[in-house]
């Protein structure tokens, strides 16, 4: 282990050992609630306490109510609270049953989920029947509260968690107006399409507000949120009683990342040379590269070594923390090597006389100096100079090379300078120069 490694471990250990972060306010309440809940679930006489009693009574009461009221309403997610008095006589003496219902809900909230606030909607039913089921009434008829007291509760009431009892009990009226809806998705990646299922009852008109400027008056609208953000979806209904009711839910739309990269097209895949990948992806947290040779990397900007030249399909997948995803494939990367021209650095001319410069590619006798070409050349020019700077050869055809003869005479055994320029059919141009040694074979 190098000094560096020790250093880095020490650095993080010393700095992070005593790292503290202040928890969000209210976290203790959540923890406390969990303790109570867990103690409640692992009930024993040791832990038997007032919470258990309260919860048991609440459950019994809720169960009775749910059983007695319309079974259909027991499935909706929105908790609905019924204040059984007409708008015109709110300050008047509330019926004892209403107070009992209120108290029931409060109990439920305390016992199950202190501090946890869920969606709730307040619904006023305008008329109340006096035919309260006697069982339910006796179960909860314990306290009647003054109207002021109840008004305060109306605004501060925390509704219980849905599992714990989303039914706060309902009085059977002539009709009950309810505003509520389900969203097919509460969160997802942009653009996010959400189907809304209207759970409202006894409504005559719907108005949806999607908080990004969109709205709808359909019963069950579908909506696409294009941009990331948090959107409050508000459903306003007009009930049969002519009053407006509102319910809302928040839809979270996460940013979808964009996969984008470039690579070193001119990279030399031979000799195990490094190939650099340039990652221009946006909003991504994680990367996975598939280099097309069954090798992978999770680095943002990897450097890859290919075992053999060729063309590869390179794929980049990107993710965010929220599991939004994108990918990009570059097909047939490194087709560059197909368009390639290379020159040898020595040749042995035919000693007995000029061969004319045309050669057979498969001939390995190396009597003609000529390039090795892969790809289609559409332009080509080769010039060869001797040490004095005198041009001794020129060709406009790659198939026509230098046989080592200048003005019908074999040139001296020496180093010659060449320069070549040209263009491939894909538009790629080249300018190359180098030297070549003429070797006389005796």
């Amino acid at each position, binding site marked *: 282990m190098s000094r560096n490694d020790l*250093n880095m471990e020490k650095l993080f*250990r010393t700095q992070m050992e005593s790292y503290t972060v202040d928890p969000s306010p209210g*976290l203790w309440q959540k923890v406390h609630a969990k303790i109570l809940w*867990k103690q409640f679930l692992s009930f024993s006489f040791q832990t038997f306490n007032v919470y258990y009693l309260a919860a048991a009574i609440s459950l019994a009461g809720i169960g009775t109510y749910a059983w007695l009221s319309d079974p259909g309403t027991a499935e909706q997610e929105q908790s609905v609270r019924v204040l059984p008095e007409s708008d015109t006589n709110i300050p008047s003496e509330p019926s004892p049953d209403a107070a009992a219902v209120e108290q029931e809900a409060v109990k439920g909230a305390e016992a199950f989920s202190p501090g946890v606030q869920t969606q709730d909607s307040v619904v006023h039913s305008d008329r109340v029947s006096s035919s309260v089921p006697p069982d339910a009434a006796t179960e909860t008829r314990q306290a009647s509260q003054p109207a002021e007291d109840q008004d305060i509760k109306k605004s501060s009431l925390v509704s219980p968690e849905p599992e714990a009892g989303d039914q706060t009990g309902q009085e059977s009226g002539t009709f009950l107006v309810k505003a509520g809806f389900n969203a097919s998705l509460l969160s997802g990646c942009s653009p996010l399409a959400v189907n809304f299922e209207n759970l409202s009852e006894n409504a005559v008109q719907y108005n949806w507000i999607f908080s990004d400027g969109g709205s709808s008056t359909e019963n069950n609208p579908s909506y696409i949120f294009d941009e990331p953000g948090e959107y409050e979806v508000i459903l306003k209904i007009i009930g049969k009683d002519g009053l407006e009711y509102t319910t809302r839910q928040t839809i979270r739309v996460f940013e979808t990342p964009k996969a984008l990269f470039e690579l070193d097209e001119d990279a030399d895949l031979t000799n195990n040379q490094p190939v650099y990948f340039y990652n221009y992806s946006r909003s991504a947290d994680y990367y996975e590269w598939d280099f097309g040779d069954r090798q*992978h990397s999770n680095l943002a900007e990897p450097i890859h070594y290919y075992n053999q030249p060729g063309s590869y399909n390179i794929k980049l997948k990107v993710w965010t923390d929220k599991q939004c995803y994108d990918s990009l494939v570059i097909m047939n990367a490194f087709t560059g090597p197909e368009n390639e021209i290379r020159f040898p650095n020595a040749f042995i001319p035919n000693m007995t006389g000029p061969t004319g410069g045309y050669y057979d590619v498969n001939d390995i006798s190396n009597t003609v100096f000529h390039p090795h070409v892969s790809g289609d050349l559409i332009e080509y020019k080769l010039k060869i100079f001797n040490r004095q700077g005198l041009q001794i050869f020129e060709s406009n055809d790659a198939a026509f090379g230098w046989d080592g003869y200048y003005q019908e005479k074999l040139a001296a055994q020496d180093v010659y300078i060449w320069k070549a320029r040209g263009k491939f059919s894909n538009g790629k141009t080249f300018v190359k120069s180098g030297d070549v040694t003429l070797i006389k074979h005796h």
Partner: protein
Amino acid sequence: MLDEKEIIEGCCRNERKAQKALYERYASILLGVCIRYSGRRDEAEDILQDGLIKVYFNIKDFAGKGSFINWMKKIMVNTAITHYHRNLKHHYHQDIEDIRETDIEGTSLDTAEFTREELLKVIKGLPHGYRMVFNLYAVEGFKHKEIARMLEVDVNTSKSQYSRAKSLIRKKLGSLKKIAEKTDEQE
């Protein structure tokens, strides 16, 4: 103010006051541990909640041997690992390939050069698997064998993830340093 002993004894008796005192005294330290493993605050707080519940309900198992805070830290680490496993199918999966890496050589890391926030940012920026291994090995001081058992991976996986995490960190710290030097020059 309750001292540590009173807190532990009180929690053993399920006393609300002691439980709250424990929270007030240790939650911020424990959240510091959770956030290193999660990288996300909301998830870290979930881990803290779950871990604290374990602390409260298993406090009788803490025999008073060793350090109480380390016992709780270990519970947080284990809870973070549970969360990691639970979320593994959602998080991206690591492929361990031995890709040669050009490391920035000779970068000496001076403790004083980096702030805690910078280091945390670097940790947060790691892929999830790397972050687990790096924290467990470098900060908590577990052996690769132990880490492999905890994360249910091969020992070599733990080693190679650690070494790649390190080279990523070194790169990130190196670029932080460069930025810092640039701003120094401008000044």
